[in-house]
């Protein structure tokens, strides 16, 4: 019984107010328990434990953890060229695929206006890659990219354009994965931009048009500023998503990371250290570094969205 509950309350109020405390406090935790056991055991506790793990040399096969202090971080940050290559390539992947996917998503959202006949079919076509399995679509893209027999180089050849080696070339493997990433991800940007556009009152654009503004000015003066909360949100989830890219690298390179490690990303390097080389402690240090990057991006996003949230 809640000690602050006055004894002289009317029976109706006291029934409503007092029941939730006391006995049913246990009830609340019983309802939370199944979800919390899973979230704590497999997300929160591991996320804390990984910091401890990073202080050990720990071979997953021999299973002989040895405390080494910050040696893993010293090696990672000061002496591991492959790590820094993976960081650069992840930044490269992000810097190209995020703006490209967002711009394409916005363009399609503007084209596929709520009144366009056949819009559901066209939206579905763009969105379908987002829900289909990575592996099944990548094995097809590998053949589309095939330098000798692929349909992409056939088309480029027909247009008398240069025919790159795509996934077979260290210079072109990353652009190949970026093209796949944009194809796979644009549908998400499209549907979220469509939701953002639907929130903009049509009268605003109509009024500007009546005042003589052309479509170009209506977009830059009205639509684009009012879309800024959507753009920030998308920028955030796209950045996080692209920093995590692993599976396309794994499948496109056949679990090698590409010739000269040309397609290795942070996520793939983490996977490889842990589950190809079984360096659990070192992979823990990579996880911590990765975690710090993600938290930094999240922190920056939260500052920006706090400033911009007034539009919604």
């Amino acid at each position, binding site marked *: 019984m809640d000690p602050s509950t006055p004894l002289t309350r009317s029976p109706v109020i006291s029934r409503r107010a007092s029941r939730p405390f006391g006995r049913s406090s246990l009830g609340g935790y019983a309802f939370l328990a199944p979800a*919390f056991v899973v979230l704590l055991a497999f997300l929160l506790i591991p996320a804390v434990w*990984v910091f401890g793990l990073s202080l050990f040399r720990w071979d*997953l096969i021999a299973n002989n953890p040895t405390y080494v202090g910050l040696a893993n971080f010293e090696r990672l940050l000061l002496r591991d060229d492959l790590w820094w290559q993976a960081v650069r390539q992840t930044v490269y992947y992000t810097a190209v695929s995020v703006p490209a996917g967002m711009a394409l998503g916005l363009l*399609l959202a503007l084209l596929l206006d709520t009144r366009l006949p056949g819009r*559901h079919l066209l939206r579905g076509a*763009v969105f379908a890659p987002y829900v289909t399995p990575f592996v099944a679509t990548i*094995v097809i893209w590998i053949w589309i990219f095939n330098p000798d027999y692929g349909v992409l180089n056939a088309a480029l050849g027909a247009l008398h354009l240069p025919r790159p080696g795509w996934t077979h070339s260290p210079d072109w493997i990353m652009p190949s994965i970026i093209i796949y990433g944009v194809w796979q991800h644009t549908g998400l940007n499209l549907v979220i931009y469509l939701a953002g556009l639907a929130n903009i009152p049509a009268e605003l654009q109509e009024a500007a048009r009546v005042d003589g503004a052309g479509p170009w000015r209506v977009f830059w003066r009205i639509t684009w500023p009012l879309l800024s909360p959507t753009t920030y949100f*998308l920028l955030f989830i796209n950045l996080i998503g692209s920093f995590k890219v692993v599976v396309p690298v794994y499948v496109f390179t056949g679990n090698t990371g590409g010739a000269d490690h040309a397609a290795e990303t942070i996520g793939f390097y*983490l996977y490889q250290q842990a*589950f190809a080389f079984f360096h659990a402690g070192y992979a823990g240090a990579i996880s911590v570094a990765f975690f710090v990057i993600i938290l930094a991006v999240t922190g920056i996003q939260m500052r920006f969205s706090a400033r911009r949230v007034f539009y919604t």
Partner: protein
Amino acid sequence: MRRRLPGLGLRYLLAVPLAAAFLFPFYWMLVLSLSRRDAILSFPPNLWPQWQLQNYVEVWRFVNWPGLFANTVVTTAGRVVLVLVTSTLAGYAFASMRFAGKAAAFGLVLAVYMVPTEVTLVPNYITLSRLGWLDTYQVQFVPLAASVFGIFLMRQYFLTLPKDLWEAAQLDGCGHLRYLWSIAAPLARPALVTIALLQFIEGWNAFLWPLIVTATDRVRPLQVGLAAFSFTDSTRPELLAAGAFMTTLPILVVFLIAQRQLVGGIASTGIRG
């Protein structure tokens, strides 16, 4: 009457080729899967298949598809059911029950939301190998049996239910569990369907986690089997495409039936699962 859309012709002129470009890899999957091998290895490529249907028969000789399908169904179903149960119970507790420490518990869920699953791969692998769960069915879905998004969505939905409903049920002697089971959860069906759809897609497409924690075809799901097939038999693109199409078909069917619900669910969160 609404005004005709401005620039209708121009819109189609831009949107139709773009949409077609997005669909092309699916068309190409189908073409490759129905092509003769020598036709694939010719340049320029044939844009039309030779209707080589026996590719779909031959691919069965290389991979144990029924086994992989069964494994995928079991792990996906386990994931969908458990996430629905955990999300409904926790979402209900946050929306409709009052208990000490609720705000702190909700803060904990928000904190979990910030954790990228990638950083938990190594610790979870160690835990689950100690439990002796590696290469089993349950290792593929029990660690994923709760979804922060699922909890949020159910909570949002339960918050919209009128309070009178619970008070009336209470007067009839109904406890929280019975009220949830027979009144609140059925009313929250749209939210449950959204969660189930997203979890089905995540489960069916699962790749990285099962790749790490399974070792044999006995429990492996389709996408892991398909990747293994692509690494060992990369010289048979027509069979690979047939396999890819078979594993994608269930997703495409669900997508065609439930496109609007699925898109709505994903648009409201920006994430799958």
